[in-house]
């Protein structure tokens, strides 16, 4: 029974907006080509408006769109076969489109978004191309929107997408979910891409740039998709939990003057409890798998912060344990420094300084010097702290972080003045 009463434009809008990539993922599977799929789906959407206005919205509008897009692709193939009269093309045609039944008759069209996400995040594509392609196909963002969000010129982003799609086609990157033995390795790549998207939006949170802000929302939506589709993967749940813990604190991260606030300076009443509760649940489920990965550990750390009613009640012992574990898995400079800071909170600044002395090769990194400055300040070695903050200011590039370091330095200098006068 057609939905005569439904507004065709609204139905169409809902289908294309609510689940970006849902229909595209199916059409790509059917026609075997990203560009062709995008084009024929667009054509199908255009003809839907006309057809549905005349005859009413069909019972299965999604199936109608997919079938129409597929038929458009068949028309194009036939045309090109007629033009080139190549036997192999004809063979390809019947192979690709020999469907046992019409898609329109299938009550539920299949969901191929997991194939799509693994293809977009294939390691044979450059990292920036993986991000762009994921946002373009699954995020439903336009090329100008993605260019804007990543602060690159539109033609550059367009070129990046064209090149990525050409590589998928020419090098024949398969449109598939990796086999079980490769899944563990590949899911890490997908998770990294989603987290990079999230981070890009998170870093921009102090700005007024809504397009950049919406990246966190996109990343969370895609992480939810990943959790839905791969419920047995604890790292996917860890990723989503981590994003939600961060997102919960979004309103409290920046002070009225636009300065970045530390965790212990934030107004905890602004934290979104419902997101924290959801993240707690996800993390509990993830931990049941007994296979702690970097994202679960980072989520656990963010969770210990998010669940502490006051800064003083933060469980720094457990946080430092998590950092020890995380540092074994991913010994990066950021993790090394955060581990130092956590140990300093759990066992005192001297313990932190001892650990920090063992960290090598981060002289050019502002967080190394600012961590050092914080610990020295807390052991009342103010002259040394001052020098450390100055060194940090020499390396810092981000304006908000610079302002923060300048405040710290001014604070130490003021204390130095006082102790000098007494």
């Amino acid at each position, binding site marked *: 029974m057609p939905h005569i009463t439904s507004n065709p434009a609204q139905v169409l809008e809902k289908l294309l907006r609510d689940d970006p990539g849902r229909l595209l993922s199916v059409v790509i599977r059917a026609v075997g080509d990203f560009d062709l799929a995008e084009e024929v789906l667009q054509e199908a959407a255009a003809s839907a408006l006309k057809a549905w206005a005349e005859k009413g919205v069909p019972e299965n509008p999604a199936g109608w769109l997919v079938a129409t897009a597929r038929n458009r692709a068949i028309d194009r193939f036939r045309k090109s076969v007629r033009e080139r009269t190549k036997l192999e093309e004809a063979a390809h045609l019947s192979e690709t489109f020999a469907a046992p039944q019409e898609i329109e008759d299938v009550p539920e069209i299949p969901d191929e978004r997991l194939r799509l996400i693994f293809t977009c995040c294939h*390691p*044979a594509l450059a990292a920036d*191309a993986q991000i762009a392609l994921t946002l373009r196909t699954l995020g439903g963002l336009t090329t100008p929107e993605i260019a804007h969000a990543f602060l690159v010129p539109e033609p550059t982003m367009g070129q990046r997408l064209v090149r990525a799609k050409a590589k998928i086609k*020419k*090098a024949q990157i398969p449109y598939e979910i990796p086999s079980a033995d490769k899944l563990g390795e590949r899911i890490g790549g997908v998770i990294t891409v989603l987290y990079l998207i999230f981070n890009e939006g998170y870093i921009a949170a102090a700005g007024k740039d809504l397009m950049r802000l919406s990246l966190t929302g996109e990343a969370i939506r895609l992480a939810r998709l990943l959790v839905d589709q791969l419920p047995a993967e604890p790292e996917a749940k860890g990723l989503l939990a981590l994003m939600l813990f961060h997102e919960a604190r979004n309103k409290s991260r920046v002070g009225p003057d636009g300065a970045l606030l530390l965790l212990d300076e934030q107004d905890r009443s602004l934290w979104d409890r419902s997101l924290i509760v959801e993240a707690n649940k996800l993390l509990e489920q993830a931990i049941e798998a007994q296979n702690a990965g970097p994202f679960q550990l980072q989520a656990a750390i963010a969770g210990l912060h998010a669940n502490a009613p006051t800064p003083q009640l933060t469980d720094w012992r457990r946080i430092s344990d998590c950092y020890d574990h995380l540092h074994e898995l991913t010994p990066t400079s950021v993790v090394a420094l955060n581990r130092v800071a956590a140990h300093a909170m759990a066992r005192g600044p001297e313990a932190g300084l001892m650990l920090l002395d063992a960290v090598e090769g981060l002289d050019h990194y502002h967080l190394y010097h600012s961590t050092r400055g914080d610990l020295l300040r807390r052991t009342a070695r103010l002259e040394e702290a001052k020098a450390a903050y100055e060194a940090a200011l020499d390396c810092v590039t981000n304006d908000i972080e610079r302002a923060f370091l300048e405040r710290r330095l001014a604070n130490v200098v003021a204390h130095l003045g006082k102790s000098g006068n007494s």
Partner: protein
Amino acid sequence: MQYIFMICDDENQQLGPGDPGFEEVMAGYAAFGEMVEKLGIMRMGARLQPTATATCVRVRDGETLTTDGSFAETKEQFGGFYVLDCKDLAQAVELAAQIPTAKGGTVEVRPFFEMG
């Protein structure tokens, strides 16, 4: 002795259909192919997709690392090859000089490592 003839040029400057000189180059390759077939020394030959379609694979600590793009960023890129069975390097060089891309580009000739 088998030699590989690695054909390199600047892929951004390559001629396409409609460009002046393109037909000549294509005719040159057709003639070269015919000649080596006739000589009975043609083992294999192919033109490659541009380096943008390349993927590098490395295994480190048991983990497979995959990266986009070509191994080396060079002015000229490896874009096609022949494997020809030549009498000696003199013949190989003589043949290499007749590959159309040798004009303007570079043909690297290398003997196979033959077991024996």
